[in-house]
């Protein structure tokens, strides 16, 4: 069997995106909770949120950079096209990313109870919510283009396609399904964060917080579960191309995601924080992978091969080689980081 390098390369992209959704998503979710519990949160509760983020958020953020870079290198025209089409939501997501990171760093520089620190914590909460929301909407719009060769035709980028003439990126980015996916993304982040923070609370043996976060995580798992089922209907109604993909190939991953979701609810209920973290992370990762697989063949550059502008296989192989070596180099320190700051013995609270 001959392995097409594009598939290996796409696998790298989507696995990195899934990693970003899980790790970056949990970090955003912590900010969503900061926004939600702003006025009721106790000191310990806030400390837990910020302490969990501190050492890891920058590393988690790099997954996004990585996705961007792999995307534009491997599929330059698709990247250019996506940037044109998704100009508005991407820009807004970017603003969210910028303010989230900056606000986190600035608040950490300030002393407790300083008014400036409170301002930055507020900004942190709002920005952490905005970023996943707009990324969700971007994915929503992107998914509409699972219908023709939009992504694969090389050439001048804007105004050459019937679609981009009728679609003004300034006005039409807020569609029902894109907004739905925006809220869904925020929900997923909040869910992940609540599960991860439940585990953090167990690790640091904070009895009160354990109860609080477990309750929140359980609630969120039900809410997000409902959201996901509703999402399937939304896709069926608004995104027929994507729905076709799910029916053809994506269904297995969707089923796995649902299974992991149920597993995480069960582990939360049975008070197994470690298992809950793994299953919830996998549930989210499978959503991303299901989406990626179901979008095929519309972002699949194979068809480009017959036209101009394909990324040569030889280039792809070089990239795959470099990325593999890079991942092998990065993995040990990444694991070390997690071990220093996230390790625990407790599997049951």
């Amino acid at each position, binding site marked *: 069997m001959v392995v097409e390098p594009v598939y290996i390369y796409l696998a790298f992209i989507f696995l990195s995106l899934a990693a970003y959704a899980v790790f970056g998503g949990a970090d955003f979710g912590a900010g969503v909770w900061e926004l939600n519990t702003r006025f009721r949160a106790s000191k310990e509760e806030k400390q837990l949120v910020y302490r969990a983020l501190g050492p890891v958020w*920058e590393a988690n953020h*790099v997954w996004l950079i990585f996705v961007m870079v792999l995307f534009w290198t491997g599929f330059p025209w698709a*990247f250019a096209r996506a940037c*044109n089409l998704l100009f508005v939501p991407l820009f807004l997501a970017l603003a969210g990313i910028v303010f989230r990171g900056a606000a986190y*760093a600035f608040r950490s520089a300030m002393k407790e109870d300083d008014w400036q620190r409170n301002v*930055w914590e507020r900004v942190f909460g709002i920005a952490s919510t905005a970023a996943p929301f707009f990324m969700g909407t971007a994915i929503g719009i992107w998914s509409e283009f699972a219908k023709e060769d939009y992504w694969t035709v090389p050439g001048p980028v804007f105004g050459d396609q019937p679609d981009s003439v009728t679609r003004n990126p300034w006005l039409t980015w807020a569609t029902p399904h894109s907004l739905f996916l925006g809220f869904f993304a925020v929900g997923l982040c909040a869910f992940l964060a609540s599960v991860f923070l439940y585990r953090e609370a167990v690790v640091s043996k904070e009895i009160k917080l354990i109860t609080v976060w477990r309750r929140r995580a359980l609630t969120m798992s039900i809410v997000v579960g409902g959201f996901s089922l509703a999402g399937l209907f939304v896709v069926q109604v608004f995104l027929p191309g994507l729905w076709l993909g799910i029916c053809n190939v994506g269904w297995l991953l969707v089923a796995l995601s649902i299974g992991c979701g149920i597993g995480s609810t069960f582990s939360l209920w049975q008070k197994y924080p470690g298992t809950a973290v793994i299953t919830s992370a996998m549930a989210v990762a499978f959503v991303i992978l299901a989406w990626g697989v179901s979008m095929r063949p519309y972002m699949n550059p194979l068809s480009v091969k017959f036209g101009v502008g394909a990324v040569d296989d030889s280039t792809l192989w070089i990239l795959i080689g470099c990325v593999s070596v890079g991942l092998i180099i990065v993995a040990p320190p990444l694991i070390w980081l997690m071990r220093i700051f996230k390790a625990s013995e407790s599997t049951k609270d």
Partner: protein
Amino acid sequence: MLAELSSDLFAARTQMAFTLGSHIIIACFGVGLPILMSIAEYLSLRGDEVWRSIATRWSRAFAVLFAIGAVSGTVLSFELGLLWPGFMGKWGEVIGLPFALEGFAFFIEAIFAGIYLYGWDKLPPRVHWLTSIPIAVSGFLSAWFVVTANAWMNAPAGFMIAKGPEPVNIDPFAAMFNAATWAQTTHMILAAYIVSGFSVASYYGFQWLRGNRTEYIRRAMLLGLWLGCLATPLQLLSGDWCSKVVADLQPAKFAAMEATFETQKYAPLHIGGIPDESRGTVSYAISIPGLLSFMAHGDFSAEVTGLNEFKPEDRPPVAIVHVAFQIMVGLGVYLFFLSAWFVLIRWRKRAVTDSQRFILCLIPAGVAAVIAMEAGWVVTEVGRQPWIVQGHMRTSEAVTGATGLWPIFFVTLAIYAVLFVGGIVSLRYLARQPVEIKGGR
């Protein structure tokens, strides 16, 4: 002119220049500060509490700068696609490799920054110190990789243009190791050390003159000085190297830098002066005949290509490039004299802190280094115009088709304003915390 000013191309350029020019300042500290931190912590390992206090306080400042660097850099990676889809679409494949490798450098940097910044109490001191080394190395590497991409824009390599408009026979390694790479990366990384070193030294020099004469301030200033003063002489050599590379590969840029309007032998070096593009003259300059020929080609009689060899639409804006180049070189010379003075003082086994005059002259050095660095980028980028990829793609072909970029630019401006004001406020906040040194003093 008005039409050009209001055009989206101009908006895109302004935004790119503004965001890159902001990011690069922070990035310099991302490259240089880890070295200073690492040395300070190393010196503290034998139980020296002053050095330890310096290292911990710098690490807090680094946390703030690193976050600003990370988010402003993220803006850039989106912008490359948002503003220059034509560029990324056509050339992304050729220059993607260094960006991908840079991604790994960021990874390493972010991982070890997390361990370093939050691991003071979790790791044994020696291990903690060791984690600062990968930060310094990956800062160096990320600068190296990204500048290879820029060098490639100056000296495109690693592809062929056959029948179609698209590049074929792509060789990403050849693109990465293009003819401008070594000179430009060396020059940029030295610039980052100079900016970090002199900014730190200037800040503490200012504190010293204000009467804040503690051992803490003295050592922090000296450490910064050593880095800046060692890098500066090397920078002049590498600047000369850069000039020769430019003279070879981008004669139009070189002519603009030196304001050489006519091709000539025994070409004079213009020091200072304001070029007049319409008349092709330089006024108020000191001219040294033959020196330019010598500097570019090592021979006083060598012929130097003038702007008259290029069609008007292929010439970069001469005045901006020439003036920016003069600023960089002038400030480089100032920093060089400062470094020489520092070495002289140490040679005579005197204390720098005894020389009020030296410290007075040191205070502007931090800002001067930043300005020199920015001016250098103006030379590189504006001097390459009208090309975005020298000889292969014009900037106007690369720009996004999206309209209404000005509002986006102003929003970006506002975002960066918040970012930088917040950053400065946070750094000042950190600086105001009293220095705590265990065991007194």
